[in-house]
C-alpha cells in the first residue's frame, strides 16, 4: 500500500465515521432542545455529549479533508475543503461537503462565544443544523461509492431513519407542549387534584 492509498483509505474511513458522529450530534441536539434524557444519564450529560461529539466530529472531518487533499491520485485543492465547488474532481459532491463543513464551523464558533451573543442570532445559526446534516449526507452518498451498496448503505439508511425519527419526535413533542403561561396552572392543578403519597417521593426534575 503506497502512501497515496493510505491517505485514500483514511479519508474514506474518517468520512464514514464523521457521518455517524454527525448523526449522533443532530439526534442529541434534538434531545437537548426538547429537554429529553437518555436512560441512566442526567440532563446535563446529554448536553455535554452533544457538545463533545460535535467537536469530535469536526476533528474527524478535518482529517477527512486533509487526507483527501494529501492523496495524490486525484487532485483536490486544500481550499476546496471550505470553498464550495472549488474542486475539479467531483465538483458537485465535494462542493456539498464544503458547504456542510462551513455550516458546522459557523455553528461551533457561535456556540463557543454564545455568552457574548444575542440568543436569537445563536439560535438562528444553530437551526442551520437541519440544513447541514442533509447536505453532509448527500455529499457522503454522492461522492462515495462505498456507501452506495452493501452494509455501509444499510448504515447510511439507518442514519437517515434515525434523523427522520428524531425530527418527527421533536415536532410531536413541540406540538404537545403547553404555552409558557399555561404550564404552572397545569402543574398546580395536578398537585391539587391528588396529593397522594406517590408524588411526594418523586424528585424535583433538574
Amino acid at each position, binding site marked *: 500500500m503506497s502512501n497515496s492509498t493510505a491517505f485514500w483509505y483514511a479519508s474514506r474511513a474518517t468520512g464514514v465515521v464523521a457521518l455517524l458522529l454527525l448523526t449522533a450530534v443532530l439526534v442529541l441536539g434534538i434531545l437537548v432542545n426538547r429537554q429529553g434524557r437518555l436512560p441512566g444519564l442526567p440532563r446535563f450529560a446529554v448536553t455535554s455529549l452533544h457538545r463533545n461529539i460535535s467537536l469530535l466530529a469536526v476533528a474527524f472531518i478535518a482529517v477527512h479533508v486533509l487526507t483527501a487533499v494529501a492523496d495524490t491520485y486525484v487532485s483536490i485543492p486544500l481550499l476546496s475543503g471550505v470553498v464550495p465547488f472549488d474542486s475539479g474532481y467531483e465538483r458537485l459532491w465535494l462542493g456539498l461537503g464544503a458547504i456542510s463543513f462551513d455550516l458546522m464551523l459557523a455553528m461551533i464558533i457561535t456556540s463557543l462565544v454564545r455568552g457574548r451573543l444575542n440568543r436569537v442570532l445563536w439560535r438562528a445559526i444553530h437551526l442551520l443544523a437541519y440544513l447541514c446534516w442533509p447536505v453532509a449526507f448527500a455529499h457522503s452518498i454522492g461522492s462515495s461509492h462505498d456507501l452506495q451498496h452493501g452494509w455501509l448503505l444499510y448504515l447510511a439508511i439507518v442514519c437517515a431513519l434515525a434523523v427522520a425519527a428524531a425530527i418527527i419526535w421533536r415536532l410531536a413533542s413541540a406540538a404537545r407542549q403547553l404555552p*409558557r*403561561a399555561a404550564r*404552572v396552572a397545569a402543574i*398546580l392543578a395536578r*398537585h391539587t387534584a391528588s396529593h397522594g403519597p406517590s408524588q*411526594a417521593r418523586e424528585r*424535583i426534575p433538574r
Partner: protein
Amino acid sequence: MTMASVDEAADWPTQPGGPTRPVRVDQAADALPRVLPPAAGVPGDLRAHLSRHGRPPYQGGHGRLIQAAEQAGLTGRGGGAFPVHRKLAIVARARGRKVIVANGAESEPASRKDALLLRVAPHLVLDGLQLAAEAIGASEAHLYLHPGIAPEVARALRERKAARLDRIGVKLTEAPQRFLAGQESALVNRLGGGPAVPTFVPPRVSERGLGGAPTLVQNVETLAHLALIARYGPHWFRGLGTPEEPGSMLTTVHTEDGTHVVEAEIGTSLRTLIAAKANAHGLDCSAVLIGGFHGAWLPAAKAATLTLDNKALQPHGAALGAGVIAALPAGRCGLIESALVARYLAAESAGQCGPCLNGLPRMAAALAELAGAELAGAELAGAELAGRGHRRQVPADLKRWAGLVTGRGACTHPDGTARFVRSTLTVFADEIALHARGQCSATQCSATSRTPFLPLPPGMPTTEDDWI
C-alpha cells in the same frame, strides 16, 4: 422612635378639592414624615410640594448626586437594599444612550407604600427621577406603575410640564398585576413590549437593559429619598436611622385593625411600630411576617425584641424587603395563611425554570397537606380541616425541596418562596403538630372565615396576556 403615618385612604381624599393652602412643615433632620407629605392637604398638589421643597435642585453636571447618595448611605427601598450610589455609578460610567426607570410596580400584594407614595407625593418621586437621570446622563425616562394610578400621575406630569420642572419626558407604563412584574429584568421585558417575565442575568439591566441600553431601575420611594438628599444633603439624611442603615422608610403594617402605610425611622422598635397601628387589640399577635411573601415569619415574642433594620433582622433569617410587616392576629391560623401564600407564589411562577415550575407547586401542595385544608380556588370555599394526619415525612420533604429550588432560577422567586416556607415550618411547628391531630389553634380559623388575613389577589395567570 419616630413615626409618621398615612392611613390608607383615610387621611387622603382620592379626589382633589380638599384644602389647597400649602402647609409649612418642619424640615429638621429628625422630623417625620419625610417622603410622605404632612397628613393634611391635597394628594399630589404641586403648589404644596413646591412650597415645601422648592424646584428640583439640578446639580449642573453628571455624577455629583452619586457622591451625595454614597455619603448619605441610601439603599434601595424596593426590597434588595442595594446601595444606590453603586447602581448609579455603574450606569453613569457607561457610554451612549442610557435609560432610567422609576419602579412603582409594587408587585408584592401585601405592600401598599409605592401606590400611596405615587398618589400623595408624585412630585417628589418625579423630582428624584429627573435628578437621577441627570446624575447618570439618561436621555430616556420611564415610570412603571400600578394600573389605576396612571391618570393621577399623568396629571402631575402635565402640571410639571406647565411649570417647566422636567428636563426629559417621562413615559408611563402600567405593570401587569403579577408577583414578578416588578423584578428588574421582567420590568425591562415589559417596557420593551413583551410579557413581564424575568430573564437570566448576566447581562444585568445596568449593563444591557431596555433596547440594549444600560438601564437604571430604582424603586419610586428610593427616588423620593434621593430628591430629598439632593436638597437637604447627606448629613440631614443621616439625622434619622442607624449609622449602617440611615434614613426613614415606608412600611406597610398589617394588623387586625387594618392596613396602614407608615413612614418610620429605620431602627424603630418593631413592637412600637406594630402597637401604634393595633390600637384596639394591642400586641395580641402570634407571629409577625417581615418582608412580605418572600420574607420570613418570626414568633411575636422574638419580633417584639427586634428593630426595623436589616442588621437586627439578619441573624434571625429575616430582612426588611419592601417594608411589609404583618402581625398575624392571635385568632388566625398561620399555617393555613402560609399555605395560601405558598399556593399563590407557586401560581405566580413564570414557568420558565424547571426547579421553580415543578418545585413550587409541589411545595405548595405539601404545605396544604400539612394544613389539612383543601385549598380549592383562591378563596377557601368550603374549606375545612380534613381531620386526618399528614404523612410523617412531609416537613422533611419540604425542607429538602426548599434547598433544591434555592439558587436555581433566573430570578430569586424560588429562593424567596423557599425562605417563606422554611420559616413557616419553624415558626408554626406546634400548629403543624396540632393539625396532624385534626385540630387548629385558631379561634377564628382562616379556613372557616372567608377572607384570609394576608391579602392575596384573586385569579392566576393562564395566558400570555395575563403577563402584559
